[in-house]
């Protein structure tokens, strides 16, 4: 019962739903909002449950289903609060239930920063439906017109004329006997009457999270469960030639080893293959795995080396590529002679390293599988497990736990498929635990990119032509063999939609092959594209001897609705309601400068500010980073001012938290993030050689300024990341005169 609003020309790839967070090719909205809920739905037993998202019991408790995964972005709080608001429910009497994977709920793939955007109206409809039924029931009992009743009193229906009230619990049974109203008959509260939307709220789970109570994927236990650690092929596509597990089997607690077949290309979300060590606790499984002797056939990716690959990408970026946007004629302008400025930028592979490594428990019984896991995408768990185990996806139940971070990694359910496969082979529940080393070495990496930019400049230093070329192993390589070009989704992440007012502009994309698994990570292609574009803009400003803020605003030009080509709504139908408005881009830029005291504050030697602006996931974000660089290159970040225009905001406290966190995530990318490979093997393994930002390296003060807006809600979880690294590097240039064109900073003599 799914409405596929629009299936893109890409549609299905390799028989599997293309679940890229950055490409929302098929927008799945629940058609069954007013139909029978599934037997797994926790509200099925409530007295009044007019939609699959809300139920009310006779004691007045309101039950709301959270169908999106919560990896820290607060969707378990914000979406239920939208229901509660429209229902005029008392938030203290709302219970939130996490949904299993079920296509009836619509899209559950929690990435691409679109939970609020896609489900704001759906949640309001649920709340309004229940409210109208309760009001109708009360009016019926009192024999008064519905129009004379109100729910302003919260959790009760009131008839002010006769000073009568009835609680929601008292009305639930009577309301449940009424027909469920049609969508056209619903009345929504005016914005001025919103009681929760736009008001800060703590997480629904905050007290539990501070007392160690909630169940993450890592915390699931089932009766009779065994634990598995898997020795994965060190090179992507590798196979076991031979192995000796005698020493492993000697380890106390280890019961057996089980081989897992290698995947058939393309790898998609299939298990990597390898040898699993089964034990009666996690530690023994890890210890036993260390004792395995395995000879691997590494296959063709064993030639992959990061340094030579980087050179290859740079060479490609200097040759013509596929044109993804063309305005005017850059070649003609370059041919005129005059001042030319060019620069190369580079960003490395990155790993997600959520604090909770991938982990899943699966129980295979009589042709059905039940999975408990930390997943961003329970429906992909169903599909992948079904395919790997050889059953129908309807026979896979996926319980979604809390996620100890996700950042895009946990949209890919290979680890859940491993658990299901092992449970099928062993006939008992299996918990597959990835160590941190597994997580770092066998990630779906954020891709590496080489970018070349070239501009012809007039007498004032303003570009008369602008060429940009981006080369990176694309995410499509995970879903199709030999895919070497980015798709329109990756290109629309700050490349084909450059928002500058230029008479001549060409954006291109060059080919690159993947030799590791490539996947989406928080902000995806925006990360490297914004780094190149916003660094280049700053370089041009300095070359022209102009203030970077003034120059950036001149580049953006006057406020206008920018024509995007290709039209992003081809991939993401709802984008049609979100035109790219450069006036909003200007506004956040000016506001960030104002809040940060741009041009107004005096700094000591070695201290300076940098600015960058970027629109992603339909939100406009500008960031000013203040940096202090010591004589020996030690970088500290005393202050960050970031301005976000994400349209209508549900929970301002969550928005603040996401942007505070994005500054730290951005710091990790800029300071130290770098995954490298030699002979196809990832060199890094844990936080000592893949460091992420710690408290003493993080920005000391992040000031988040939210633009007050009544525009449609846009993304929040990701858009804070892209402008951060360029703003930081622009500040470092202002402070030191040293330009960072390659990330991370540790490659440039900074620490």
């Amino acid at each position, binding site marked *: 019962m799914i409405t596929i609003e629009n299936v893109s020309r890409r549609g299905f790839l390799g028989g599997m739903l293309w679940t890229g967070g950055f490409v929302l090719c098929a927008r799945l909205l629940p058609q069954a909002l007013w139909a029978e809920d599934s037997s797994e739905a926790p509200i099925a037993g409530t007295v009044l449950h007019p939609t699959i998202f809300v139920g009310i019991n006779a004691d007045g408790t309101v039950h709301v289903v959270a169908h999106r995964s919560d990896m820290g972005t607060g969707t378990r709080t914000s979406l239920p609060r939208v229901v509660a608001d429209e229902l005029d429910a008392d938030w203290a009497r709302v219970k939130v239930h996490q949904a299993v994977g079920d296509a009836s709920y619509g899209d559950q793939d929690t990435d691409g920063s679109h939970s609020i955007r896609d489900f704001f109206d759906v949640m309001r409809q649920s709340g309004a439906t229940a409210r109208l039924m309760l009001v109708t029931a009360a009016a019926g009992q009192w024999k008064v017109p519905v129009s004379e009743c109100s729910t302003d009193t919260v959790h009760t229906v009131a008839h002010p004329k006769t000073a009568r009230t009835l609680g929601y619990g008292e009305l639930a049974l009577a309301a449940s006997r009424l027909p469920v109203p049609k969508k056209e008959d619903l009345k929504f509260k005016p914005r001025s009457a919103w009681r929760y939307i736009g008001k800060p709220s703590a997480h629904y789970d905050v007290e539990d*999270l501070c*007392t160690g109570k909630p169940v993450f994927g890592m915390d699931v236990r089932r009766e009779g469960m065994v634990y598995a650690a898997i020795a994965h092929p060190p090179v992507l596509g590798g196979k076991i030639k031979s192995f000796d597990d005698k020493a492993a089997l000697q380890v106390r607690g280890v019961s057996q080893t089980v081989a897992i077949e290698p995947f058939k290309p393309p790898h998609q979300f299939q298990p990597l293959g390898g040898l699993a060590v089964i034990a009666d606790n996690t*530690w023994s499984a890890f210890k036993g795995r260390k004792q395995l002797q395995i000879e691997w056939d590494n296959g063709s990716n064993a030639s992959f080396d990061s340094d030579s690959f980087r050179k290859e990408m740079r060479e490609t970026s200097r040759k013509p590529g596929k044109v993804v946007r063309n305005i005017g004629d850059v070649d003609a302008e370059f041919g005129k002679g005059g001042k030319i400025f060019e620069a190369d930028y580079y960003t490395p592979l990155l790993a997600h390293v*959520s604090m909770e490594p991938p982990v899943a428990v699966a129980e295979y019984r009589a042709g059905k599988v039940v999975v408990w896991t930390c997943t961003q995408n329970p429906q992909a768990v169903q599909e992948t497990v079904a395919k790997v185990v050889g059953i129908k996806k309807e026979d896979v139940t996926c319980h979604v736990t809390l996620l100890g*971070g996700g950042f895009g990694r946990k949209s890919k359910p290979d680890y859940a498929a491993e658990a299901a496969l092992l449970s099928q082979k062993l006939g008992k529940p299996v918990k597959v635990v990835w160590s941190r080393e597994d997580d770092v070495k066998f990630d779906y990496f954020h891709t590496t990119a080489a970018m070349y930019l070239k501009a012809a400049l007039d007498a004032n230093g303003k570009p008369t032509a602008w060429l940009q070329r981006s080369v990176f192993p694309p995410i499509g390589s995970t879903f199709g063999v030999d895919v070497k070009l980015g798709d329109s989704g990756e290109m629309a992440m700050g490349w084909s939609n450059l928002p500058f007012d230029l008479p001549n502009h060409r954006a291109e994309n060059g080919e690159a092959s993947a030799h590791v698994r490539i996947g989406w990570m928080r902000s995806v292609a925006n990360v490297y594209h914004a780094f190149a574009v916003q660094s280049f803009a700053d370089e041009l400003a300095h070359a022209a001897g102009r203030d970077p803020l003034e120059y950036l605003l001149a580049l953006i030009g006057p406020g206008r609705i920018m024509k995007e080509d290709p039209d992003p709504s081809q991939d993401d139908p709802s984008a049609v309601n979100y035109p790219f408005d450069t006036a909003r881009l200007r506004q956040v830029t000016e506001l960030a400068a104002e809040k940060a005291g741009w041009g107004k504050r005096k700094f000591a030697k070695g201290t300076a500010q940098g600015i960058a602006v970027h629109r992603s996931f339909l939100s406009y974000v500008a960031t000013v980073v203040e940096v202090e660089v010591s004589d020996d290159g030690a970088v500290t970040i005393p202050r960050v001012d970031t301005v976000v225009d994400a349209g209508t905001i549900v929970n301002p406290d969550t928005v603040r938290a996401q942007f505070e966190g994005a500054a*730290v995530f951005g710091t990790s990318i800029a300071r130290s993030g770098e995954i490298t490979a030699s002979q196809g093997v990832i060199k890094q393994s844990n936080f000592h050689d893949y460091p992420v930002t710690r408290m003493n390296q993080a920005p000391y003060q992040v000031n988040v300024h939210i633009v007050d807006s009544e525009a449609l809600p846009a993304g929040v979880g990701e858009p804070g990341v892209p402008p951060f690294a360029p703003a930081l590097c622009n500040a470092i240039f202002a402070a030191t005169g040293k330009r960072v064109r390659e990330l991370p900073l540790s490659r440039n003599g900074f620490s």
Partner: protein
Amino acid sequence: MVRLNVNGVERSFDGDPEMPLLWYLRDILGMAGTKFGCGMALCGACTVLENGSAVRSCSTPMATLAGKNITTIEGIARPGLHPVQKAWVEANVPQCGYCQPGQIMQAVALINSKRKVTDQEIDEVMSGNICRCGTYQRIRAAIKAAAQETA
């Protein structure tokens, strides 16, 4: 046989003496509040108190714990929330929350040893605990609030 005390309860363990305390707590006792993050004492997610001092349970073998008192996130409520937990809730610190038991235990050890804390002391003590969501600003604020509360 190792005898130890976990959150006030006497326990004995006769398994692999190399097993780290983390996995004893999680897999043997079923106390899952203490988290696995790195297995190498690099991230602090597994932090517990050993005789009142913060230790990384992922790198503390059971063989070293005879006669020791272990306190975990499940054992600091007194009853009601510990002042550090209260401060965490008030600042709405957690995002995903996975690292927070370790952060809280590290902060409890800090608050227990000092009544007034400077930014520098907080940095020194807390920089062994990674939060990938980036809640450091709120952690710092919560520690200051908790320090005032207990002063």
